[in-house]
């Protein structure tokens, strides 16, 4: 009996050593602190659960090298440089375009594959052929939002709130403006910068334009201040947000002023269709075993898919060579991801056929829920 135990322990030790030798490193940089910490962490949980589901690839254990970019472009560059020094096989991240683009500028020349989990600015994947993404682009999101404002909300003049120091916000507001003006509407753009608290000057500028619809393209750190101030100063118009509004900091920070706040965002199981919806729901069940469901959003699915496509590409490549992984990823076709099918063949690194959800915050008293209105796909 004792002998068996000793042998077993010995075998386990050897096995452990063998595993330790066969590890591959994937870098993950996300907004784990700072103004986008909520979404960054939700994304990371998705990566972690996907990692628990598929801990090995080609017989080697995957080790996640997690780096916090502190919701800053500088932090993202620091993370990217760290990954290059560590010699990671590939990189996952990040949520925001303002953080993905500078990191891509480091990883592309270094020849390291990067899969962004949340960047929707078209410029991200245009940095180079090593840069991929999971979500749709803002060209699509802006057009969908413009159609919603024009057709569903019946708006003819829209005030666009733009965070002028953020790539995502500037890009999205531009696409919305073009799409909405092409539909025959009028727009005005109101600028603010990160961490603005007092919006009375912007709201003053709103008075003479007197819009019948408001489009918000910034993040929740500012929306939590802006929306209550709009409501308090007598603006009762419908407000539509971009996917950066899909963050608990909005309704938690801003309170009941967010009742009825509608926004487009990444697909959740309810808006997906067919086999993808089943895979997403299955993933949610697995997620629930490790984390609470209030951390489960479309960004979680996106994080999981970034991990899954990389594992698939490393499997297809059969090696950890950077160029081989890139080629395998660029040839990926109809990969069954939890956020929908993913095809990179013939694209600039943005998968075709993404599904977007339309959601709204609904309040009863002080508690709120995120209601699913409908799913929107590219066709």
């Amino acid at each position, binding site marked *: 009996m004792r002998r068996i135990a000793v042998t077993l322990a010995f075998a386990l030790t050897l096995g452990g050593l063998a595993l330790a030798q066969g590890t591959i490193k994937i870098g993950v940089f996300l907004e784990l*602190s*700072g103004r986008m910490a*909520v979404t960054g962490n939700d994304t990371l949980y998705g990566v972690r659960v996907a990692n628990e589901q598929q801990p090995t690839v080609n017989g080697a254990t995957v080790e996640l090298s997690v780096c916090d970019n502190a919701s800053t472009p500088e932090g993202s560059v620091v993370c990217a440089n760290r990954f290059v020094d560590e010699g990671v096989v590939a990189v996952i991240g990040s949520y925001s375009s303002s953080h993905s683009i500078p990191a891509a500028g480091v990883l592309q020349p270094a020849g390291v594959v990067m899969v962004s989990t949340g960047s929707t600015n078209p410029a991200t994947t245009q940095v180079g052929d090593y840069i991929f993404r999971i979500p749709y682009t803002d060209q699509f999101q802006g057009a969908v939002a413009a159609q919603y404002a024009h057709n569903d909300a019946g708006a003819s003049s829209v005030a666009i709130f733009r965070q002028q120091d953020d790539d995502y916000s500037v890009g999205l507001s531009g696409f919305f403006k073009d799409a909405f003006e092409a539909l025959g509407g009028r727009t005005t753009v109101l600028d603010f910068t990160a961490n603005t608290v007092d919006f009375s000057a912007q709201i003053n500028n709103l008075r003479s334009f007197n819009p019948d619809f408001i489009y918000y393209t910034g993040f929740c750190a500012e929306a939590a201040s802006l929306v209550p101030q709009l409501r308090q*100063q007598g603006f009762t118009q419908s407000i539509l947000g971009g996917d950066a509004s899909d963050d608990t900091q909005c309704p938690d920070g801003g*309170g009941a002023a967010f009742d009825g706040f509608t926004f487009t965002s990444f697909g959740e199981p309810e808006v997906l269709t067919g086999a993808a919806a089943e895979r997403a729901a299955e993933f949610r069940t697995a997620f629930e075993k490790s984390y609470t469901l209030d951390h489960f959003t479309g960004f979680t699915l996106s994080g999981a898919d970034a991990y899954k496509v990389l594992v698939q590409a490393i499997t297809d490549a059969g090696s950890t060579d950077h160029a081989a992984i890139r080629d395998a990823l660029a040839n990926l076709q109809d990969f069954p991801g939890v956020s929908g099918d993913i095809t990179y063949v013939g694209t600039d690194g943005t998968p075709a056929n993404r599904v977007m959800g339309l959601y709204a915050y609904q309040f009863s008293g002080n508690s709120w829920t995120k209601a699913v209105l409908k799913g929107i796909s590219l066709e």
Partner: protein
Amino acid sequence: MAASAVVPRRRPWALWLVVLGGLGLITWRMLYLHGVNEAFNAAFFAGAVVRSLQLGSLYALIALGYTMVYGIIRLINFAHGEVFMVGAFAAYFLFSRTPFSWPVALLVAAAIAFGVLQFLNFWRGRARDPIVLAGALVVFAVVAFALASTQLGWFWAMVASMFVTGVLGMTIDRVAYRPLRGAPRNSMLITAIAVSFFLQNFGILAFSNRQTPFRPASFFTGPLQFQVFGEPLFTSWMIVLVPSVTAVLVVALTLFVTRTRLGKAMRATAQDAETARMMGVNVDRVIATTFLLGSMLAAAAGVLWGMTFGSINQPAIFGILPGIKAFAAAVIGGIGSLPGAVVGGVLLGFLENFLTALFPRTEYFSGITEYKDTFAFLAMIVILLVRPSGIVGEDLSEKV
């Protein structure tokens, strides 16, 4: 000989000309805008004025802390913005997390009682006065019991937060600045920046790393709507509360500085610390008191700031911009001067809110809203070039 010949020329009419001319220009601009667009009506400008006053009062409260500390030890206390942040978060925990568990209640009550002890000392003058000690003990017992049993309203949360933050300010002075009293001024400045970074990161770990709701149950945060020349103005009761609380605190501070022994010692230290020490003033105690009062005002500003905007930013960024702007306000008004801080703060509020309302976005002009965060610093540069001692500052020669 030449120096004695220079007599400062007094031209009071020049000042009046500038003021009246400015008012005239503003009136003309408002009438012109009203002609351009009906939306720029009396309610629009009245709203801008009340909001300017509200924001200006908040800047003034923060600026007072900068100016007091600078006046006494010639230190630009860069950690003051973070003290303001701690004040807001302390109040947040006091109204949203009470009743506390007993250990927490005792700890917080101890900090509050220590602050009250310092306060009672102002009046009695001696540290180990039995009346003062007994008073602090009673406060400790009552506060501990209150914290452990009931939920605090915004007012008591503000008062408690003022004492907690005041004690924090004294602690910063004792730990970080007092050991450097004789050191070069740059060492103190660098230490102040270090304290600021420390508090930011401590706040992220201890308080929150996200946008935090700041909505205590209060009548004042409710909507207030009234008519200005037949046009509706939408606002909240905070436009009444913020300037009133500020006025009360500023009057109390002025009375303290001008009417009490410790206030007199403070003025003496500001004029010349060495001589004051020789005259028997306990300079270290005066400095500690300065930090206590400045931090208390910052805490009050933090609470009013949170209630005005409904939520507070995460600790690493919450204090920075208001803090630096308030510092600019202190310089504009004349750093080292108490009325200067108030004037500078209110002026800054008008620059950010009323000036942007005077140049709003119209069909032909994109407005100056995007640049409003730079006004504070532009004004500071202009003041430093034109009148380095600030609007109401004393003559520079007295300070050096």
